[in-house]
């Protein structure tokens, strides 16, 4: 395998949201992301998977500086992103973009599709004024929209078409990194496959790097080259896609994979379903955050936070037992 070029390196990124009480006094913090380190290589798709509230969306937004990190550093191609000024982070938007989950609420209902797309060009000052419309129309065709959609409003489009607009809006500034936050979760199966194909096509055509966030294991498995599993603000396991599914090491990954229903009615899975619910990120368990639901938990797990260790090349896991 050829040496991949590093695009983004995150080191011990933390994002805490303050909980304010009476008179704005900070009473506690929601530890949404609590010390995550990862690297994204050029042209790869990094899948981020985990349950609701595990901090995967917050991590995605923090990595591209949509949310300022509380602690830690994010370096994109040699540029430190934490602590960028407003003007600098605006310029950053031509390199990193985001596709949102809900195509119904992430498009401005008062703007025509064409205006939504050219607005990004205006802000980034890309292309001459007269060319911007042509640029938008060309991209619309690439993502499978018709030229006539240029003058339509978002409510006139179907869910799948809206998600195409969402992707076009991200791609029009020609970014290197696109964070896709559950881009197909709100779509029906038949539309989902259209959008997934489109995402893969655009990646090949433009050498894009994706950070693909999803809770759907079959989708993540299809699009990702590497996968990171998150639990309660921590990355607990990271491996290439084939390795993770063939040999899941962390007890949480195993539980997660065993809970995914199979598409084959002949397979009757033996499931090990985790007991109870996700603990609150306001007051996370001490030591290993998974110890409250882990079938193997021991005293050491309750006290000591396991480090991420590389067991096989590219396969990292944070667990005392392995």
């Amino acid at each position, binding site marked *: 395998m050829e040496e991949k070029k590093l695009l983004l390196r995150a080191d011990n990124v933390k994002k805490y949201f303050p909980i304010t009480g009476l008179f704005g006094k900070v009473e506690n913090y929601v530890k949404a992301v609590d010390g995550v380190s990862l690297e994204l290589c050029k042209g790869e*798709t990094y899948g981020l998977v985990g*349950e*609701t509230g595990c901090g995967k969306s917050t991590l995605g937004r923090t990595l591209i500086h949509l949310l300022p990190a509380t602690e830690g550093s994010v370096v994109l191609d040699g540029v430190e992103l934490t602590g960028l000024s407003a003007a600098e982070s605006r310029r950053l938007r031509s390199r990193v973009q985001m596709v949102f989950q809900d195509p119904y609420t992430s498009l401005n209902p008062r703007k025509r599709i064409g205006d939504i797309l050219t607005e990004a060009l205006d802000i980034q000052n890309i292309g001459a004024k007269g060319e911007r419309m042509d640029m938008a129309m060309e991209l619309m065709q690439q993502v499978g929209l018709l030229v006539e959609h240029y003058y339509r409003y978002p409510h006139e489009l*179907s869910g*799948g078409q809206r998600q195409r607009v969402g992707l076009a809006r991200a791609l029009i500034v020609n970014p290197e990194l696109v964070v896709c936050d559950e881009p197909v979760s709100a779509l*029906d*199966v*038949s*539309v*989902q*496959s*259209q959008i*997934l*194909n489109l995402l*893969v096509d655009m*990646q090949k055509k433009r050498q894009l790097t994706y950070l693909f966030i999803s*809770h759907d*294991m*079959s*989708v993540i*498995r*299809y*699009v990702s080259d590497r996968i990171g599993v998150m639990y309660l603000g921590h990355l607990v396991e990271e491996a290439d*896609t084939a390795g993770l599914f063939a040999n899941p090491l962390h007890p949480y990954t195993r*539980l*997660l994979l*065993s*809970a*995914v*229903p*199979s*598409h*084959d*009615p*002949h397979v*009757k*899975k033996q*499931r090990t*379903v*985790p007991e*109870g*619910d*996700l603990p609150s990120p306001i007051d996370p368990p001490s030591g290993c955050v998974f110890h409250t639901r882990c079938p193997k938990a021991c005293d050491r797990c309750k006290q000591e936070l396991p480090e991420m260790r590389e067991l096989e090349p590219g396969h990292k896991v944070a667990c005392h037992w392995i």
Partner: protein
Amino acid sequence: MSKTILEVENLTTSFKTERGLLKAVDGVSFRVDAGEILGLVGESGCGKSVTSQSIMRLYDEKYLAVYEGSVRFEGRELFSLNEKEMQSIRGKDIAMVFQDALSSLNPVFTVGEQIMEALSIHQGLRKDAAREKAIEMLRLVGIPSPEKRCDAYPHELSGGMRQRVMIAIALCCQPKLLIADEPTTALDVTIQAQIMDLIVELNEKLHMGVILITHDLSVIAETCQRVAVMYLGQIVEEAEVTELFDAPRHPYTQGLLQSIPGSGKTKEERLFVIEGTVPLLSQIPEGCRFSPRCPHATDRCRRIAPPLFAGENGHNARCWLCNRL
């Protein structure tokens, strides 16, 4: 052979709109046996939820909806009952679990009170007895420390817990038929697995019939015995679950199954795509409803609507070409 508890025949539900009647469900027929889980699968707008709510007659018949056809529950025709008789069936003999537990539960009553309400209406239990039964139900659906949770309000519980409370309310009067409308769609896979296991376990224990409505084919594959696939208000295919997944006969079902990113597929292989989008109910195509999106459509498909052809082992498909595909 189990006895049939629900027979739906030629059910048609039309909504009164400004532009006239819109048929959301058009001639749907199926039956559910006691102890059986029937899956109803389809994409949004295919009429699967309308079908289930029509069985319960939940739509206002004066201003909103027109029902045709027949729904027989244990031999009784539901469409000829009056509202009072219908009320004695709803929640008692036929119960329903909805997708969004937060908006289906009443936020100003504790979950215990909401379970007790059903018990006092249908079984005439007094407060103490109802409370005891409510706690027992919460324990049955696997809620830890039910004595305490009984006094909790819906917002104090997690999504999975709320869905369990919904199931507890639905099951407290021991219904003969449970309609679960996307019971796990809003939940995570681990919670989904817990809830589906619970539904299957209770289905076996209480020997009730279950209609499981979902858009998720893998949930169907794992839990149902028989499946009906719906498209634009009609059942397009019906079969035993293994048969449907092994040898789908309708092009729509085939497309759905192929478009799932299945195990082992990588992004080097393109996913199968059903071309186009689901048409609006006001623009239902002539002939076969799937013909504009069907890769095999012929002239006959575009002109004449196919009937539901009966096949072996109750494997039916609404397609002119189903014996050749």
